């Protein structure tokens, strides 16, 4: 896993080639699984491999992929964020209330929602670094707080009547790809750059590998974690905005359990819950694998109960193969 660990060898043409090879091997499981699934589903239903279907797959993968980006950073620090689903709900409500009830301009309302997400993430980070609460508990608390606030905001009722300009976030397309998928793509590309090519990314992985050594070499671990959780909150908020556009409604129960999907995506993509490892591309492929599985089983007329079982097997299988590969090396 040299590619994603904190210490990188000086790059030489040969080293780069080796890195590329390692990179491909790390993504192997998700990539091969996706290709296999695509072939099987295409054989089972000719329409699987149509533009219309991949348009829908692109829409469906966006939300889980966005959450997986945030989750990758958190998991890379050996943390976990189980508050994503309810932060999504809270920010979805915030955005919809500002637009529908208070007639804010769409962009301003989205900005406010992102700020709410940042605040939620910052609070989680604060509980972790200042109050010494473990990430699981800190985000468990935020899960309840954000869900409660989302329900309180309208006393539980959903909000409708969003303007078309807002709904275009999901329905509009650019170069044949839905806007919401562009959002996920752009965020993922930026995140991949940050994680792989910047000091911020190297620090993130270093903290996950060994927080104590990171501190000793002079990384301000607390400040860094605050940043990471705040940014993860912003990404959850962005997912909330996309969710509202996709469902043309904001409801306080939106995003329920979505954190589990994003954690699964990260793990399928080669991330380790012990930290120090993880790539954005891997997590993105993990999200895509789950979406293709859901979509394809439905098109093939396979029972949704069977699909759940397959998903579980895939998650465990992914980690098993990852462990195997590490031992072989």
């Amino acid at each position, binding site marked *: 896993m040299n590619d994603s660990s904190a210490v990188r060898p000086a790059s030489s043409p040969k080293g780069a080639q080796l890195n590329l090879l390692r990179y491909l091997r790390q993504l192997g499981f998700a990539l091969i699984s996706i290709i296999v699934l695509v072939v099987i589903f295409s054989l089972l*239903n000719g*329409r699987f491999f*149509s533009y*219309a*279907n991949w348009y*829908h797959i692109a*829409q*469906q993968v966006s*939300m889980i992929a966005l959450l997986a980006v945030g989750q990758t950073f958190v998991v890379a620090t050996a943390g976990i964020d189980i508050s994503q689903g309810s932060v999504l709900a809270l920010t979805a409500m915030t955005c919809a209330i500002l637009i529908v009830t208070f007639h804010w301009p769409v962009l301003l309302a989205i900005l406010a929602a992102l700020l709410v997400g940042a605040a939620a993430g910052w609070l989680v980070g604060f509980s972790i670094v200042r109050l010494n609460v473990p990430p699981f508990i800190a985000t468990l608390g935020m899960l309840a707080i954000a869900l409660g606030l989302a329900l309180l905001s309208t*006393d*539980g*009722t*959903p909000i*409708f009547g969003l303007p078309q300009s807002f709904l275009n976030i999901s*329905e509009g397309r650019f170069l044949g790809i839905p806007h919401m998928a562009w959002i996920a793509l752009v965020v993922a590309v930026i995140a991949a750059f940050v994680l792989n090519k910047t000091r911020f990314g190297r620090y993130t992985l270093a903290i996950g590998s060994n927080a104590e050594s990171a501190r000793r070499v002079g990384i301000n671990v607390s400040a860094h974690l605050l940043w990471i959780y705040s940014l993860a909150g912003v990404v959850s908020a962005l997912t909330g905005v996309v*969710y509202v556009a*996709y*469902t*043309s*409604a904001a*409801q306080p*129960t*939106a995003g*329920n*359990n979505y954190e589990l999907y994003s954690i699964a995506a990260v793990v399928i993509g080669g991330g380790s819950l012990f930290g120090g490892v993880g790539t954005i591309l891997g997590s993105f492929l993990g999200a895509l694998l789950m979406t293709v599985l*859901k*979509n394809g089983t*439905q*098109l093939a*007329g396979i*029972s*949704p*109960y069977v699909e*759940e079982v397959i998903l579980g097997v895939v998650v465990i299988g992914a980690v098993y193969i990852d462990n195997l590969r590490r031992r072989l090396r």
Partner: protein
Amino acid sequence: MSKQMSLAALLTALLSMALAQSAATVQQIPVPRKPSKPYTFELITKSNASPYWLAVKEGADAAAAKFGVKLQFEAPASGTDLAAQIAMVNNAVTAGVTAIILAAQNPQALLNPVRSALAAHIPVITVDSGLSPNIADSFLATSNVGAAADLARYAATHLMGKSGQYAIIDFNHTSSTGIARPKGFELGMKSFSYITRDGPVLYSNNSISKSIALANNLLTEYPHLKLIYGANDRAALGPAEAVARSGSKVEVVGFDADLGEIKYVKSGVIKASILQSPYDMGYYAVLEALDVLQGTKVPKRIDTPYFLLTPSNLSTNAATKAIQQYAPSYKP
């Protein structure tokens, strides 16, 4: 204020009368021919593990088997995962199924996916929970307002002695049924001026444990409470459990009949429950989809029958038939 209230009540009454008049009965659905081509229908319900939706599925399966249609079943794991249900309708359209039978999680959010189905010449029949506006080819459901009002009138006269307080536990306020059932109940209670509601309408989010907790809180908070109304199976099971465990004298009335509820009707904890026709909804939805595909005109709105189950009529044939709508293998 009372003048305004009565005007509103009058309008609602007129509206429900108008709705009742425009709705047809299941007997008015033309019986379709057996299709000559292989048809694939997709049934998409609100969630995939509730006995109620499985009863709808059994009815649809029976009709599909009778007419040689392949029926596929799909539903989100949770009744509130709107994005998942939207994705499922979109996927069914790309899959190129012949018809879609849908119980909409939300009356507005499913409009666009259903529009794209109709644009692809895939008939859409909604069951139980419809769309607003009703753009589907047909909508089969209980008249939820009417049934809940009937239940309220029964509860007021037979269980509350026309006076006292009641409370409502609803299951959600995002779906058309979740909105209509408390509304109908209050409409029925309005004719009894000595009856009032305690507290706001509470929401169990389809969780039995949440419903039990809400009911326990109600029993503590309102010592003079006479009756709790649970607006679906899980919302009614909560107060039934709470009352049975605490030995409280509060009456429980509800909707639906899973086996847990039947047990409580037998033991007299649940004093009345509206039994809908989930099996018939699934069955006739398949017939209607075939009708539409064969160019036969179907009624836009169909009221499926309901039955008021009480401990005293539990052993009648009519009650057995009504319970079999939920559990086809049920024997008294």
